[in-house]
Every structure is written in C-alpha cells, then in structure tokens.
C-alpha cells in the first residue's frame, strides 16, 4: 500500500552534525560500497572511465558558502540522503506500491521488484534523495542500511549504518527519533536540530544540527599591558619570578 502508516513503532533516522562534518565524502563512498550488490540491484556506474560518468549514489556531500551580515564568509559541508519523512510524498505518488514506509521502524524503501522506473517519487521528493539507477532503471535511495542494523551476521556494536560507522569526524548519529530518551533525540534537543524545507510539510525524521556560532572572540582577561617594558624591565620581572619558583 502506498498509503503512509499513521504512526510507526519506531522512527529510525540519522542526525547530521553540520558543526563537525568536514566534507570528506567518506560516508558517500562507504554507502555506495555497502549497498552495491546488497539491497536490490547493484548501484551501477555508466561511462565510469569516460567523458560523462554517471553513477547512482544514495548519499552526497554539498558544500555551501554562507555570507553573514558581519564577519567573514563561512563554509558548511552538507551531507544529504533520504530523510525517511513521516509524511513522505514519495510514497503516496508511487503508482505501483513499490515505494513504501515500514511500519516497524519508519524506514522508507523501494521494493525494486515492483518499481517501473517512472521517476515520479523522485519528482515528489524535495531533497533529491532518490536517483534512478543509470543501468538498472529502478529507483535507488538510502535504505538506512536496513540490511545491517538488524543483521545477526554482524557483531552487535557494528549494527549501524555503514556511513555512520565510517564517519571519521563522528558527525553522523543513528537512532530512534521517536524515543525522547534516545541519544539522537537528546542531541537534537540540546543542539536545536532542524528540519529541511519544513515549509513543504514532509515531516522529515532525519535532523540537522546547525553549526555552532563561529568567529566569536574568546573573552579572556586582557593580558596585563606592559608589565615588562623593554628588555631590562623584562629581566627584572624574570628575576623576581625565578626566585619564587
């Protein structure tokens, strides 16, 4: 059914810390590496060694420059993948029921066996989280590593999305955003987690932690102006201090 579940047992998702992401693309490649030849058809690459390489990726890093009213311009590296929206337009538009949101954990998936590659779900997604595979011609999107996070063949501590496990800066957090006591929920509360394009009413589950304020001068006590005027003043001070050691 491409109608959305009213509520889900859990709302698993990612929390991306934009104050810590250094834009290294590790999550992008780790995601492609895990998902190609795992969930569904391989993530193909057309013309991979030619003039116009086009491959399907489930997660990408944009880099934005922000010009504040005052102070130097800033740069923010911005990971973007499916937000597993609670009110996911990409699910309701799908004509075959291939696009669905799981009742158990709210993960939005594509059942590739039913996907006719019409592309409408990608049109409906504001965030560009879906890409048609250039060779398989089915819709590809973040699966929240549904084949890792419950996998008995993986050690308990590693049942995490591949992108979260590999992020060197620790900017990616995974958990249940419907549980107020989860680490991710507390993180969102502490850091004022934001939704993307809230005005479109998709109710995303993934949250983004805004960068902490930058270029703020620390406020230490100003250094004593000229306790050691010139070299000889300095050496006077030096002697007094050395004697006290």
């Amino acid at each position: 059914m491409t109608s959305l579940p009213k509520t889900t047992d859990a709302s698993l998702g990612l929390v991306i810390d934009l104050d810590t992401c250094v834009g290294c693309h590790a999550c992008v490649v780790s995601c492609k590496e895990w998902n190609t030849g795992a969930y569904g058809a391989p993530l193909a690459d057309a013309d991979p060694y030619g003039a116009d390489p086009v491959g399907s990726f489930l997660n990408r890093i944009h880099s934005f420059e922000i010009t504040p009213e005052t102070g130097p311009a800033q740069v923010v590296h911005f990971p973007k993948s499916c937000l597993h929206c609670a009110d996911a337009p990409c699910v309701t538009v799908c004509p075959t029921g291939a696009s669905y949101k799981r009742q158990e954990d709210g993960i939005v998936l594509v059942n590739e066996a039913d996907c006719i590659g019409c592309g409408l779900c990608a049109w409906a997604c504001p965030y560009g989280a879906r890409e048609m595979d250039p060779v398989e011609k089915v819709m590809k999107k973040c699966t929240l590593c549904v084949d890792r996070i419950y996998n008995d063949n993986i050690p308990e501590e590693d049942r995490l999305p591949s992108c979260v496990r590999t992020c060197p800066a620790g900017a990616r957090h995974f958990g249940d955003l419907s549980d107020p006591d989860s680490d991710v929920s507390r993180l969102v509360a502490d850091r004022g987690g934001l939704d993307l394009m809230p005005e479109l009413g998709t109710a995303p589950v993934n949250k983004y932690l805004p960068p902490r304020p930058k270029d703020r001068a620390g406020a230490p006590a100003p250094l004593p102006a000229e306790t050691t005027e010139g070299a000889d003043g300095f050496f006077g001070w030096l002697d007094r201090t050395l004697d006290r050691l």
Partner: protein
Amino acid sequence: MHPAPSIIVFTTLSGLGFGLMVWLGVAPPTKTPWVMAFFACLAMGLASAGLMSSLLHLGHPERAWKALSQWRSSWLSREGVAAVVTLAVFAAYAGLWVLTGARSPALGALAAALALVTILCTAMIYTQLRTVPRWHDPLTPLVFLAYALAGGALLNGAMDALPWLLAALAGLQAAAWARGDGAFARAGSTAETATGLGAMGRVRLLEPPHTGRNYLLTEMVYKVGRKHARKLRIIAFTLAIALPLILTLAVSVGHALAGLLVLSHLTGTLIARWLFFAEAEHVVGLYYGAHRDSLAG
C-alpha cells in the same frame, strides 16, 4: 524539469484524444456512423498513442500493469485506471453506435465524463507536486482541460464552441504563465530553508557533490533562458490559440483550413507543453545553486 519528448507527446496526444472523446460523447457528428467511426478511431488512436509514449518514459515498461494497483493514493495510478475504463466505455459507445446505428446518449455522456476525469488525473500528477511551485496551482488542471477541450472541439469541428474554448484557453494559459513566473518565489523554499542555514546568513552553493552529471541534474535541474522562453511562449500562443481563434471567427472553415488549424494548434500545444516542463523549477535545484534569478524576482 527536463522536457522529455515522450512525456510531452504523451500528455499532448492523450489530452487531444480524451478531449475529442468528450465531444464525441456529448456532441458527436451525426452525418453517418462511418464519420463517427473515423473520429472514434482518431480519438482512441490519439489516447492510445499517448499512453504508449508514456511507457517509453518508464524504466520497466514490462511491469507497467502494476501501475494500476494504487488508485487509492496515486494520481498516476488513477490516471491509468481512468484511461483504461474510459477507453473501454468509449469503445463500447462508439462500437455500439457504428455497428447498430443506435447511439446511446447516456453511454456517450458517461464516456465523456470519464474522459474528463482522465484528463484531470493526468493534470493532477503535476499539480500535486509541491516540489514544483509553477505546477502546484489550480490553474494547471484547468489549462490541461482547456487544451483538451479546445483541441477536441477543433478535431470534432465544433466551430461554434471553438472560439469560446480558445478564448478561455487564452485567458487560462496567460494567467498560468503570469502566476507561474512568481510561483517559485511565492512558495517560500530557498537555499536557506533547504539547508537550514538561513540563520547564519545568505547561502550559496560553493561546490557541488560531484563534478559530473547525475539523475537529479539531468531530470530536474533544466535551465532555459528567460528570453528564449518568452519567444517560445509567443509562438506557442499564436499557433495554438491566436491563429485558430482569428481564422475561425474571420472565415468559414473548410476541410483544408481545418486541417491547417489542427496542425497549427497541435504544434502550438506541443511547444506550450515543452515550456510547461522546461520552465518548471524543482526545489531540488536549490541544492545545486539553481533558481537564483527566480528567487531574486
């Protein structure tokens, strides 16, 4: 949005086909059943050709039948179902009439109604998308209807209704263009809301996630120059609306002229439909540094 030929042809032909069905349903040519047979085949041919070309756009046409299953929530699914039902009812109506000579006005009306529903479903596929502000507007279904009915009237030779429909189409298309131009700015999605970084200042793309193309850029971040689009609007308006309107008012339309008008209207409609996609701006472009002039207003 990328103006894919298959989608442009699909929406234009199926619009004309189902538009003609509406006329054939409620105001058919009454000379001989064979004229009706011709027009019925024309209508069903156009509609079917439209559906076929939409299959070209699919990644897996072999599973297209699955697209009929989600009519409860998906406009694309509803359009499929409506199209199939309409074709069936219309075929029955036309077949009955041609074979038995007896025309059933009720069946005709039903076919016409179903054709209208199909046209609306097609339009709603685009209208429902909040991600494309230019489309997400009540005028979109009205314009689709106007094109379908005007085109149908032209094909059906309903010369008395045609001027009114063309006039209505003129108003609706002009209004749609005018409102559409401000739609993106009005919708309120910006690079700031797309990234959540507005509190820090003005947001601008510094570096895209990949230096090559990808599906999103090809499919949804299509750029057409403002000057070029203006020129095409004038051509489309002239061919699809102005020329047919003036000629039908000024002179009695014989078969040769009617053929010319159909050709003119069809060409104009295809261009207008091309613009409908090419000028449509998807919010995903905000992640790729697009739409800055639309937002600048």
